[in-house]
């Protein structure tokens, strides 16, 4: 039977009930004009159907994995894109004590492995680095070491400077021995020197040395040093051959081997460790840093080989990150996988085109400049360049997952996305549309162990 009634569009109740109570529709007039749920469907935990679990995981960009210094390239580039210049400078300076130098003289393995190189043109990472080096920053702070050590550094080339810098940052008493009048070693005399404008190197070295270490311009012999210092690093016999000498002291006898990882085939190094100085500037900086962090770990009672496995970048035991070391010391392990997001892992179809940027950002950065080596033009150029970066392996809030999830179970707040696993059915559309491999997939059973 049908009824000839007055026609009207029956609206559902103004606030649709979120209750779990079943609604009874006894009469035709109880029905809304269209099929709108009158009670919540939240009782159906559809997430129980899930076989594959999508989850967010930051990974490694190839640029990071290629940088011998251990620069967190994608982090500082994307921090610039987000408009936080000083934070970006902090990230840069945390890993690299000489960015104004490497930005100009590095052989740029990062750019060689930049994914965008296969797409159109690499990102001019060195340019961003050099300009960011002129922005005000706050130095990285490590937790105090229980027993600060007396450390001697012989020579002041890039490796020695980096070693001295990190040792001082890690609260050790550093004395730098350099017979030449000016610090810098081969940075001053070598073939790269012509790329460094007058005064730039001085300013960079001043930022490293400052009040934080003693400098002596007299010549010293190894025996003399061994008597006074617990750790000696540098070109003790010649600048071409770097050495780490651990004379022993309060916690070990002079002949006891040090469990220092990875120099050539040696698993366990002798207390005196000669190494051929790496030829390239950035490799030398990375090496000084590598020795400093692992030595500090050793002195803090950590196993250096273990530490290395925690702080290496992109699975490469030659490259270490100070920020990762800090995370280890402060017990804040970074939720980051070292899987390198190579070109084939990008979802090129889903990549967004470069967004435009606010000129206010340039003005802000201008106010943070500390020198005349970067200008407004440089800032503008670098900002545009930063916007070209694909942000490989690092979420840049493109919103694709949030937009595409057919079940609308991804929520977004304050730059974070969250998946509601009570309702995620594991269709993996989110993973398929993530351009940069941040969304990862694992079988639910494996996730649960």
């Amino acid at each position, binding site marked *: 039977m049908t009824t000839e009634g007055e*026609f009207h*569009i029956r609206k559902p109740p103004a*606030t*649709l009930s979120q209750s779990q109570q079943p609604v009874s529709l006894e009469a035709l007039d109880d*029905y809304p004009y269209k*099929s*709108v749920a009158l009670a919540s469907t939240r009782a159906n935990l559809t997430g129980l159907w899930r076989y594959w679990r999508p989850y967010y995981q930051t990974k490694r960009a190839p640029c990071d994995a290629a940088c011998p210094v251990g620069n967190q390239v994608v982090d500082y580039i994307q921090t610039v894109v987000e408009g936080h210049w000083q934070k970006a400078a902090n990230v840069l300076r945390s890993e690299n004590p000489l960015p104004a130098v490497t930005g100009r003289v590095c052989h740029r393995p990062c750019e060689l492995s930049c994914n965008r190189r296969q797409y159109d043109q690499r990102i001019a990472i060195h340019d961003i680095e050099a300009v960011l080096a002129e922005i005000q920053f706050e130095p990285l702070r490590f937790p105090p070491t229980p027993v600060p050590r007396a450390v001697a550094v012989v020579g002041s080339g890039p490796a020695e400077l980096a070693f001295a810098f990190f040792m001082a940052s890690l609260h050790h008493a550093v004395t730098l021995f350099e017979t030449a009048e000016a610090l810098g070693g081969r940075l001053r005399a070598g073939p790269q020197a012509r790329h460094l404008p007058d005064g730039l190197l001085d300013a960079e070295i001043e930022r490293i040395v400052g009040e934080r270490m003693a400098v002596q311009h007299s010549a010293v012999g190894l025996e003399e040093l061994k008597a006074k210092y617990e750790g000696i690093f540098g070109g003790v016999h010649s600048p071409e051959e770097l050495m780490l000498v651990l004379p022993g002291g309060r916690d070990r006898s002079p002949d006891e081997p040090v469990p220092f990882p990875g120099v050539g085939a040696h698993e366990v190094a002798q207390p005196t460790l000669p190494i051929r100085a790496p030829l390239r500037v950035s490799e030398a900086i990375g090496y000084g840093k590598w020795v400093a962090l692992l030595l500090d770990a050793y002195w803090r009672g950590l196993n250096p080989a273990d530490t290395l496995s925690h702080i290496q970048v992109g699975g490469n035991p030659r490259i270490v990150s100070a920020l990762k070391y800090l995370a280890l010391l402060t017990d804040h392990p970074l939720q980051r996988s070292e899987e390198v997001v190579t070109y084939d892992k990008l979802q090129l179809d889903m990549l967004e085109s470069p967004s435009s940027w606010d000129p206010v950002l340039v003005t802000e950065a201008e106010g943070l400049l500390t020198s005349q080596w970067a200008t407004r033009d440089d800032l503008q150029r670098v900002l545009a360049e930063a916007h070209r970066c694909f942000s490989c392996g690092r979420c840049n809030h493109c919103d694709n997952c949030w937009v595409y999830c057919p079940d609308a179970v991804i929520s977004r707040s304050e730059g974070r996305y969250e998946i509601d696993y009570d309702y995620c059915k594991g269709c993996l559309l989110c993973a398929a549309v993530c351009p940069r491999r941040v969304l990862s997939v694992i079988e639910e059973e494996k996730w649960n162990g």
Partner: protein
Amino acid sequence: MERIIMNGNSAAAYGAVLSRVQVTAAYPISPQTGIVEALAQHIASGRLKAKFIMAESEHSVMASLIAASEAGARVFTATSSQGLALMHELLHWAAGARLPIVMVNVNRAMSAPWTMYCDQSDIIAQRDTGWLHVYCEQNQEALDAIIQGYKVAEQVMLPVLVNMDGYYNSYTTEPVDVYDIEDVDRYLPPYNPPVKLDPNEPHTLHGGTGPHLFMEMRYQMWEAMEHARAVAQEADEEFGQIFGHRYGLTEAYGCEDAELVLVGSGSLVGTLREVVDERRERGERIGLLKIRYLRPFPTQQVRQAVASAQQIAVIDRNVSVGMGGVFWQEVRSALYGSQVRDRPVLGFIAGLGGRDVTPGTVDQIIQIARSNPPQDVPIWIELKERR
């Protein structure tokens, strides 16, 4: 108001502009492409503030319009033939979801064999999807039917399909009145749906519905469609008062005293009109019934129009293979049970796949009608003879 010479595609685009549609998604297909191009230009020039979505298929077109409409936007698209067919499942969805979408179909015969030319086989196949179906005779009517379409759709909450003939309308230029948009605003208020998607108050739409609930939902659609007759009538009346063009759900032309009533739809009505004028001048009692709405079917109007006729001849530019022309069936079933149920209702199939329906064709139809041909099989007109 401005009177501009334009083809039907441009007129349809103007209809969308004047209706201030907010979202349009489209996929080009001849002979509809001109509408999409014109709309893209209107949007690019800023005349129409709307989001233009280039979809990868007609299926996606309708899917995105359904979503946009659920979100509260006034949405528009146009398609033809295979494109319309590709949308089919979503046409049901749009109607069942009670979304007042307006879509223009520039009709074109369904292939195979491959063809670009006009007939109603595409649109007729969508008859039962729950959309209102409006057939236009002229370009002006297409523009007007879109504006009226929103007016009606948004009251009964059902989608509207506006059909015009490929080539005959889409590519033929005629003078068309383009109204001042302020006047259209007075006629067509902004769209404000009773229910819309709102992230702040999420709710499930169209979820799984069991047998204990489903029939009532369908019945409400039925009710809305029944009611649409009166709403469409009123909307047409008000439109006429403001803009001076009135169409009705049907138009009975010279039917009062007609012995033979020719029934048609779409652009061929123009040809019928000429022939009827000419014949009436000669004193022949021939009338014309133009069917503008196929859904809801204007049963009463049809019954009235043919009340005095001795014979009714329905000319279909479509064929339901195995039965006959669809308008023919519709008219016959509308008359069944009425006082005129015994009048012969002849079914003629003409103009398929873009074959012209000329005054000469109509003359033949009249001649055959007068020869008292069989009534229960369709008569194919201007078909080549067997050898």
